[in-house]
């Protein structure tokens, strides 16, 4: 985990999972995101970095239409996932969010048992035909999230009773349980200590085998450790996007260089 992950140059050749063109986001009169074009590769980790208020979280939330829950927010441009425009009026945002899961900055388990936290999504979407299938989904989600060994004997206990890092892995397991294709993570480690952070990063690296992951992070080391591609946002503009190694060793834009060398932000 301490060295740079291998950059799979071949990624550039494959068809992208998410394709955003000329995306604009407005909060009331504020123009928060300007002309963002980005291609996100399938089964890889893409990191969004940038100083606070640069719009990276806002852009992340447009990818599963979480911004719809904010009244004054307006999105323009086109965002396609698997060639389907997610802002098409025919698209049901609720269905979209089952396909594009999300993990939040602060662990937010529901005030329910660990089991019910994981079973929440599958129950809503009717993914299990009987109790046995539901049990299997819960177990496999917890296993994939690396929480099974710690939680298997306390599935009936409240999810809020777990430690911060365990809670965040519970939230990742909860997202996995509805079998999404894309998982969005909004600074998933910012409320965690270094050991819990290391576990979550390890988990992200494993999840990349099956899921397309987009992660917003404040820590450039974290972006370097877990991502294959990195996008640098500044003042609502996507300044530079490319293979993580290139961004950190050979940035093309002066602003990117200033940011990663710590001259601002």
């Amino acid at each position, binding site marked *: 985990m301490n060295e740079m992950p291998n950059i799979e140059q071949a990624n550039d050749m494959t068809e992208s999972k998410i394709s955003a063109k000329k995306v604009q986001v407005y909060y009331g009169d504020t123009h928060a995101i300007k002309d963002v074009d980005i291609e996100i590769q399938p089964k890889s980790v893409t990191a969004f970095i940038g100083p606070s208020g640069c719009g990276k979280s806002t852009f992340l939330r447009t990818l*599963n239409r*979480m911004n719809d*829950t904010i*009244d004054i927010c307006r999105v323009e441009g086109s965002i396609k996932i698997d060639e389907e425009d997610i802002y098409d009026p025919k698209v049901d945002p*609720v*269905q*979209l*969010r*089952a*396909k594009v*899961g*999300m*993990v*939040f900055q*602060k662990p*937010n*388990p*529901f*005030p*329910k048992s660990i089991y019910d936290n994981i079973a*929440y*999504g599958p129950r*809503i*979407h009717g993914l299990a035909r009987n109790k046995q299938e539901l049990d299997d989904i819960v177990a496999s989600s917890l296993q994939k999230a690396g929480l099974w060994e710690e939680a298997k004997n306390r599935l009936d206990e409240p999810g809020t009773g777990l430690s911060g890092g365990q809670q965040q892995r519970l*939230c990742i397991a*909860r*997202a996995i349980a*509805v079998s999404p294709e894309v998982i969005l993570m909004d600074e998933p480690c910012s409320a965690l200590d270094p050991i819990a952070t290391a576990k979550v990063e390890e988990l992200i690296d494993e999840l990349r085998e099956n899921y397309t992951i987009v992660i917003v992070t404040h820590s450039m080391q974290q972006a370097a450790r877990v991502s294959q591609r990195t996008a640098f946002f500044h003042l609502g503009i996507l300044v530079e996007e490319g293979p993580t190694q290139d961004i950190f060793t050979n940035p093309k834009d002066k602003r990117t260089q200033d940011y990663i060398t710590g001259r601002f932000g």
Partner: protein
Amino acid sequence: MPVIWLILIVLAIAVVGYVLGRGRALSSAGGEPIKLHSLPSYYGSNVAMKVVVPAFLILVVWLLAQPLIVNNSVSGMIPESEIAEGSSRSLVLAEVRRAASGLDNAVAGGLMTEEFARNARADFNDVTQRLKDAGQIVTSQITQPVLRAAQEYRILNATGNLLMSVAVILAALAGAAWGVLQTNSHFRARNTVEQGVKVLLIAAASIAILTTAGIVFSLVFNTFEFFRIYPASDFFFGLTWAPTFSGRGGNSELGIIPLLWGTFYISFVALAVAVPIGLFAAVYLSEYAGPKVRAVAKPLLEILAGIPTIVYGLFALLTVGPLLVSIFGPDGVGIMQAGTAVMTAGLVMGIMLIPFVSSLSDDIINAVPQAMRDGSYGLGATKSETVKQVILPAALPGIVGAILLAASRAIGETMIVVLGAGAAARLSLNPFDAMTTVTAKIVSQLTGDADFSSPVALVAFALGMTLFVVTLGLNIVALYIVRKYREQYD
């Protein structure tokens, strides 16, 4: 000197003290406020506080104590022989006070000189005649001891008032001197004022608590009195409520069960109306409504809480009752005799309680962290799934608290019951029968002209005590639940 003048004088001294204290503090620092320990206004407030607090304390204590002392000494002047058959000492004392105030008014009207009013050798026939001429209504004849007592009463009160004024003003001046003298640039006026503010707040809180205790005590004594003359077991377990006002209420049957049954039945109907409607309204307002709708709808809903209950009572009597009769009455289903019924009162009371439930629940639902909603939406849940499975369970303890508070309102409600449910105490399961509640019966027991020593009147206190215990219990449970809920997200 009238008390209002005394208060104004003390306040004037306080203002002067404020200015002096502030000025002295400033001059002790050579005119540079930065060298003072506290802001200059704190030094002024310190002096003003030392003027007002002791002076007003003396004033209040004096005002409470003087009538007791004067009455006591005047009372000793009235011989036993003066107290007529069937009368009592307190009635004669009231007579004395009336005569004294008659003398006061006569002097104020210029019909009598002060010397004459005080003349101990005055002929009481002459005084009576003069008072009657002056238009000061006095009982047919003032007797010699009563006149002497009235004169003594006036003298004692005048002396007392003079002494009080002197004592209060002296205390105010002494306080001002103390405050001004201790003022110098090192004096910690800010801390002293802070202490004063704390004491003021403690005093306000204690008055509220002591009043509650006072209410309970006033109920307790009369309740004991009632249980001395009426067996407690008949009261608590009697199935009939039939007070008779004849024979000093001796033959009354005063069982609380029919009243409690009516209370709980009507409250149950009210909650069955208020809880679902209020809760759904709260969910709509907090989760679905846009900011514009919410800004209009929430105050409108809360207007319901501001309508006086007597107006709801009229609504029950004139609108809801007849409407129900037209459906369930003799011309319809045939199970309702008249407009006054449990259902009428319950429905209207339910409408009254909607804003209680919705407003409290709305606050509680809003207190559920946004992260819970985000988590649920992020998993592809719809709004109603999120409300049902995440928000309501998380807010449930608080909502239960809101419902229990509404329940104690329902149990204590009177006017709607009087107008909507009738006055017949009855044990029945039919919600279209007239019934009555504990509170409505308290009103009817005390508004008659029953003697306060008969069980028929005293039972009101026992009823009130029972109600107090029930609603207190409900409130304690509600507070306990609400507090437990608060701990969850902290």
